[in-house]
């Protein structure tokens, strides 16, 4: 039986391999941290890591995840202490919080690729993640703070 590795754990999958990974995670695996916002790769609410790279789960078929490692917000860190998560808490970034799992996964992926992003880098990479509550200025600040928390730089 095909399996999908999510946050280090194998999940069996018997259904239609065209099912978007988002719905597998939420409805089948019961991992509801990854959110549904648009279903068309327009909002970033469903952002997960596929082999460490930010990916929109709503347009990624389960088939594409069979050979990859999937990380969701639930698996980003053991104790919720990833520098991005810490920074998000310290600056009270969230309003309703619904978009924030996607924002955090996108930001963590950005910092992996660019450990010291400028505001322009942040805007370019985070522009795929909508926040209807309008937390953008705090997201920018929190990403800079996460850089500091990572230790290497300021």
């Amino acid at each position, binding site marked *: 039986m095909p399996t999908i590795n999510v946050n280090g754990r194998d999940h069996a999958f018997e259904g239609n391999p065209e099912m978007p990974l988002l719905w597998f995670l939420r409805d089948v695996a019961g991992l509801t941290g990854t959110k549904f916002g648009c279903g068309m790769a327009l*909002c970033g609410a469903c952002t997960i890591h596929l082999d460490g790279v930010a990916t929109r789960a709503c347009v990624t078929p389960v088939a594409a995840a069979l050979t990859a490692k999937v990380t969701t917000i639930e698996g980003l860190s053991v104790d919720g202490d990833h520098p991005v998560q810490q920074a998000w808490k310290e600056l009270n970034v969230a309003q309703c919080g619904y978009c924030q799992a996607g924002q955090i996964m996108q930001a963590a992926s950005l910092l992996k690729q660019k450990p010291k992003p400028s505001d322009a880098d942040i805007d370019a990479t985070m522009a795929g993640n*909508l926040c209807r509550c309008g937390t953008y200025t705090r*997201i920018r600040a929190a990403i800079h703070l996460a850089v500091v928390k990572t230790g290497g730089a300021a």
Partner: protein
Amino acid sequence: MSADGQIPVKPLDVPIANESRRAFLFGLGAGALVLAVGLPAPRALAQEAKKYGGDGMPGGLKDDPRTFIAIDADGTVTILNHRAEMGQGVRTSVPMIVADELEADFSRVRVRQAPGDQETYGNQNTDGSRSIRHAFAPLRRAGAAARQMLEAAAAAAWAVPASEVRAVNHELVHAKSGKRAGFGAFAEAAAKLPVPEAATLRLKAAKDFRYIGKDGRALVDNDDIVTGKATFGIDVRLDGMLYAVVARPPVYGGRVRTHDAKAALAVPGVVKVVPLDGAPIPSAFLPLGGIAIIAENTWAAIEARRKLAIEWDDGPNAGYDSAAYRATLETAVRAPGKLVRDAGDTYAALERAPNKIAAEYYIPHIAHAPMEAPVATVRITDGACEAWASVQAPEAARTLLAELLKLPKEKVTIHQTLLGGGFGRKSKPDFIGEAALLSKAVDGKPVKVTWTREDDIVNDYFHTVALERIEAGADAKGKPVAWLHRTAAPSIGSLFGPDTKHQRAGELGQGLTDLGFFGVPNLRIENPEAAAHTRIGWFRSVYNIPHAFATQCAVAELAHAAGRDPKDMLLDLIGSPRQVDPSTLAEASNYGEDPKVHTVDTARLRGVVDAVAKASRWGRTLPKGRGLGIAAHRSFATYTAAVVEVEVAADGTLRIPRVDIAIDCGLQINPERVRSQMEGSVIQGISLALLGEIRFAKGRAVQTNFHDYTLTRIDGAPAEIHVHAVNATDASLPLGGVGEPGLPPVPPALLNAIFAATGKRIRTLPVRDQLRGG
């Protein structure tokens, strides 16, 4: 699944009733029992007098400590939050208030979410920027009463006068004897004492507040939000739950003529196809009807819905067309309409004025588009129904479900989850009604109805469309002498009453009939007719959006016509400091507040203008292509003013280097969340001004998802937002709202800034590409 077979929601959100194994000493929920004497809210005693504020809301205010506070034997304090959390921070602010008066150590406080039960908790309708404005006083009383009960219990045990025992930071202290003990030690005894009379409560002096008014409080849900554990409506999971989506009529008032579900039923995982009756016009909170697919997972339901063949009868709104409707509104505002406020002789004064303007402003429909679209889960067992939903109005949901399922209201339980944004959309429980009907269709099994983004945008309760015409005049010295405003916009009343053609008093009272312009001697406001052709609903700050947009743009236009500075013109229009009872100006709803207490206070309106002008260094010289715009507004008994700075490149590309916004809502309970609400309002205001539009053609919303219903993204957000608090520690002022008042001044300040930068006056929202091509 959790141990009790319920949803794996975080303990914070588990309904209180499930907590029987914990020995709560102030029995949470006991308020529903006969012994609930409660504390009569002061004004509730005056039976005959008109009730205002929270007392005037259905269900009123409750302040029984036994309803809102529980203390464990180990001293853990549990505070019930009875309002919907949708990003405004109420789950953090409510416990700040109660814990402060209780003298609790905040690190030992937990928050629990109340179910929808207006009789027990008082009004829970979370909109109108009311939560803290209304609940501050009763929650303080609840906290203080519990504190005094603990003090009395300790005094009795120690055989000392109660007046000598004080609660200090989660302990009871008798200074003379040096005795001290934690709250837990006396919780049980305290719970058996009578609740003190309101008159005997010792509320704290403002200087003694530990949490109220203190900045930097961390959100109680931070840990859950950043780890993905927070439970929103869409995250509810029940044993044996089925998943549904609904194909709804694309036109308001439409119905299914015929449908063929063969192909849909063939999709693996589909359980049932259920036709739902269409809603009559006006539909109020009723589900819109259509064809529902129930399946084993959301994706199967969505896939099957694609395969439905449906022929619609579009009904009477089939011809709704935005371009044609705009022309209808233009015709309406070019002739006199129903007079709703009048001072002086405006027509004659306009005639004589040497400097004048006549301008028409168009504000299109917009969709709420909360990041979490509507979702609800319902289960029916043994003649009782339980719903889990992200809903702003749990009592309205309860009433609707009782009606649809023909159950007594007591048999309907609404569990509040976190809301992934609300903005007014989730004040309407139609989506919960759908889940109830579908659960009934599968013998009460739990059914979760998910709205896709397309559903959310196409079948929203749209923010009204509006055409606002203003004619204004200034004398030879540039002093304002005449102001005529005609407003035409379909009313939200059209949801509930057929043939509603005029805005209701509460809608006109959002920035027009209560407009704080007393420096202009001739002022006239008229309301020509406008019929609704789709569902119109509350959107954050509601009619303040079109009213403030037109008014505050016209201020700058009149200033320009008279060769004056826009801020000076604004202050002239406001006039000298005074407090005006809005009920003397027109039929006023004043956001439900006492017009003699929550006056239109022009000193406060001037105050936010001055604050924001100073902070933004209004009047400074800017490089070419840059400009500043200003606007101010009173809404929800709060005063706000914004200055937006824009930079417009030669090709029309717009950037917003900085926004300053000042707010005077009186005492700020949770300054950190006030700031974040202002930041959010600024960005939402920019988004709707620059991008937001739903157009209708053939009765249908043209936009469907975020590719064509575009919203401001991080790359369009201001580089800096500065929030300025005015009168934030003045506890003598009547409290104002916070969730909505930040929005109205932002679009006009932005458009005024664009004019300052480019000389181009844009009167049709959204701006979109109107700056391109010179």
